[in-house]
């Protein structure tokens, strides 16, 4: 029973850890997109006027 519990727990923990890692990666990329877009907009603004 202990090994059954441990087996299922580790299974779901690893899966949840991977999903959390993907979520963190998505947030980091979204922030980077926002920063880079702002930098490009700033550069375009400088050229315009």
């Amino acid at each position, binding site marked *: 029973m202990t090994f059954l519990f441990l*087996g*299922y727990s580790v*299974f779901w923990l*690893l899966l949840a850890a991977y999903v959390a890692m*993907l979520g963190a*990666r998505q947030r980091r990329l*979204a922030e980077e*997109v926002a920063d880079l877009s702002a930098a490009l907009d700033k550069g375009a603004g400088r050229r315009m006027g």
Partner: protein
Amino acid sequence: MTVPTTRPKKTAAVLLAIAAPAVVFAMYMALIWAPDERTLGTVQRIFYIHVGSAWNAYLAFLIVFVTSIGYLLRRRPALDAVAASAAEIGILFTTLTLATGSFWARAVWNVWWTWDPRLTTTLIMWFMYIAYLLVRAAAEGEERRGRLAAVFGIAAFATVPLVHFSATWWRGMHPNIVQFQGGTPRMNMDPEMIVTMLVAVAALTLVNAALLAYRVDLEHLSRRVALLRERVRLEVES
């Protein structure tokens, strides 16, 4: 300028919405509905997630194989993105297979690990796809990375049949659930156990599909980031 989308598309969310109840149902069948195995007792129930994980690792690596061939033929970056994503998910499912198998082995064989042919070849497969990701990380230039990874992804797939048939080709301790009697495949299991195994495999395949859709979206997003970085660099230089 247009800000690229930073939210994963609907496909992953829809697949997850289908996968979640399927997984709950599969867990009910695996932990409550399926009968206890006569000699192994309740610990045999690890089998359902173990087989589901192994099947999904094979499936993910098959996707790497097919999309790698596709990339070499058509050079479409989208195919390379799917291959990279599927390799990562295949590694996840192989990790789950090894981890759940280890708990089963400890309970039944009284060891966490043994150099049985099935276990050893699975470990080799795991290392091969970790090497695939390392090749991707080390290669420079999108075209070169895609080409190198595709060749590696095709070659690495040789480990999948090796793992699958290892229990038939070499004598080992790992149980072989499908046995051939007079050329006909037979499963020496209770019909309720077979149904539970198939439901668990189907539910985890849906999880696999949801993860793949999510991961592919992230791969596209990271390529957009690379593109934006390049534009900023050019802007700064001009």
